[in-house]
């Protein structure tokens, strides 16, 4: 049996290094009844999200219906699977929990109203639902979040991880120096699952792990956090380092673009630097426009180099300060005001027929004089 399975927690209390999430989750489960919110576990891979849900099930003798959202292309398919097992009573009259993994992996475009379907499932479910996701800022989650209790998992603490690895070595009767465990913990970057996997691999057929064995471990391509990449772009003076920094970020370049935009003025303070950095973004944006007009992705490299390297070299010297990087307004508000803007657009288009001019013109020629309510309401019945 692979060690990650063998040593996965069987009780909620055995979950390592996630005291606060465990507490929040236990409370949520105790108070859950049909109609209540689902639990949404967010956090990087390998920190115990799925483990916690499974530990709860084992401890309480519940049947886990597990779905990996990335295996199902649309939320309609998920609904089908869940809908079926929702109707069946559990075989041995056990309770059930639904675990939908990687909800942020659900395809965004193909299933319009996707989150809507999931929300419906949450509202109608007779059993508790647990969703997991890596990136709590993912736009796809914004609607879903209001129907979920958010439970955020952090990376596993360095020493906590070493302690757990030591325990496993003891139980497996494998000799392993503290130095090696430290290295394993370090390269895992807070991902306990990957550390246990590495330990498992190194100990195969051996009773002692030596330093030289470490070389056999390949480096994992980490899905880097966008905040880490911002830190590099704003602090480095090397365009190459800046460009490299976004390589492993799971967000597309045009989204990273707005993350950089949002934070230029949070980092840079001199007007010349801000102006230069924005000029770089302006040029990058021109290439973005050319990509979309000509459908020619060969321009992408210029866009990326300008927005990363260009912004990086816009500073005279590195700011030795801690900057708190913000979530982009552009993405945040566009999501939030989407409904309001759609409704307004609808009103304007209706008015545009009545007033014989475009919606855009109504904005510039009529709205300065008459409010939208007045124009479309009863006061000025047209």
């Amino acid at each position: 049996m692979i060690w990650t399975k063998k040593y996965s927690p069987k009780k909620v209390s055995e979950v390592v290094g996630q005291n606060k999430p465990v507490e929040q989750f236990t409370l949520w489960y105790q108070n859950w009844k049909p109609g209540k919110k689902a639990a949404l576990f967010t956090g990087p891979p390998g920190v115990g999200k799925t483990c916690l849900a499974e530990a709860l099930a084992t401890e309480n003798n519940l049947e886990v219906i597990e779905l990996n959202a990335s295996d199902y292309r649309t939320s309609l398919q998920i609904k089908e699977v869940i809908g079926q097992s929702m109707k069946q009573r559990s075989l041995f009259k056990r309770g059930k929990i639904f675990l939908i993994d990687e909800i942020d992996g659900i395809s965004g475009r193909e299933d319009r109203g996707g989150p809507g379907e999931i929300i419906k499932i949450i509202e109608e479910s007779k059993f508790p639902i647990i969703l997991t996701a890596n990136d709590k800022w993912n736009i796809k989650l914004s609607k879903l979040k209001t129907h979920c209790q958010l439970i955020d998992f952090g990376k596993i603490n360095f020493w906590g991880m070493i302690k757990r690895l030591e325990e496993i070595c003891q139980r497996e009767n494998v000799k392993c120096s503290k130095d090696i465990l430290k290295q394993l913990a370090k390269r895992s970057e807070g991902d306990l699952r990957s550390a246990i996997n590495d330990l498992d691999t190194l100990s195969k057929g051996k009773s002692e792990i030596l330093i030289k064995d470490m070389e056999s471990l390949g480096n994992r391509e980490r899905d880097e956090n966008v905040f880490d990449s911002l830190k590099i772009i704003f602090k480095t003076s090397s365009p190459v380092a800046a460009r490299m920094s976004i390589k492993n970020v799971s967000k597309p370049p045009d989204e990273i673009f707005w993350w950089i935009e949002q934070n230029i003025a949070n980092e840079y303070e001199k007007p010349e630097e801000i102006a230069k950095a924005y000029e770089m973004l302006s040029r990058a944006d021109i290439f973005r426009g050319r990509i979309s007009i000509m459908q020619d992705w060969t321009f992408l490299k210029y866009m990326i180099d300008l927005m990363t390297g260009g912004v990086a070299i816009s500073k005279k010297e590195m700011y030795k300060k801690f900057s708190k990087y913000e979530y982009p307004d552009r993405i945040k508000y566009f999501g939030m005001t989407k409904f309001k803007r759609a409704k307004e657009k609808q009103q304007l288009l209706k008015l545009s027929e009545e007033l014989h001019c475009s919606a855009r013109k109504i904005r510039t020629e009529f709205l300065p004089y008459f409010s939208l309510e007045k124009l479309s309401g009863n006061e000025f019945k047209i």
Partner: protein
Amino acid sequence: MEYQIWTEKYRPQSLNEIINQKHVVERLKAFVEKKTVPHMLFAGPPGTGKTASAIAIAKDLFGKNWHDNFQETNASDARGIDVVRTRIKEFARIKPFDTPFKIVFLDESDALTSPAQHALRRTIEKHSTVCRFILSCNYSSKIISPLQSRCVVFRFTNLSKEDVFAYLDKIIKGEKLNVDKSALESIYELSEGDLRKATNILQTASSVGDKITDDIIYEVASQAKPKDVLEMMNFALQGEFKAARKKLHDMVIKQGLAGQDIIKACHSQIFDLNIPDEKKIQMINQIGEYDFRISEGGDPLIQLEAMLSQFILNK
């Protein structure tokens, strides 16, 4: 059905009521008489009677059935040329009602990109047997020449003070308003010959008091000015980039203003700024550059932000 917005209530019902534009109206009337209409391009400044003439000619030609034989589409709202073409196709499919042809009026055609205009050329040819097209635009230079060559071009000229007074007089009599002579002068000056603007100013002023004075007109006009734009530029000129950026985000993201309308407002308000003339000219050059970048396909928000970041250097 009574119109309460005066621009609609006092919209010309026939070519006879169009204010001035005599050279255009005369020829349009001749078309009506012969019951033949070519494809036409109406070019001219806003509020000078382009849409009014298109509707008036339809009413004169088709009488009370005008609505069945007349379709109005705003190029700047329709998302892409495909939407425009589908609308036209559907309209053209139904035979003209009691007349040899129908009229498609494509307002703000200069909002169409040049590939879209080329696509439109085919559409016009395809439906020529059933439909006559009237395109309108502010600048005919923004219409590709193959389209221009298929149309008879009519130029609408700026309206004079007398023209504006003549139109406002109709409203003043109709609404029994009491308007000072100097207030009228001010309306003309503020509107720069744009009848839509003049009418909107007058209607807003009429709700302020029984007697419409010069002061009221100026107050109405200054309230209607996009203050956000001026505030944004002032923040930038004081070196407060973050505050300027926030104003911009309010306008673009929350209010949904079009980037090019904001740029236009920036340009028109440059001379209201309290800075040396040399800086004003420098800023105009900068505004022009970012306007160009947006028209090249740049994202309005990022380009306007880049423009603001240049302004902080002018501090």
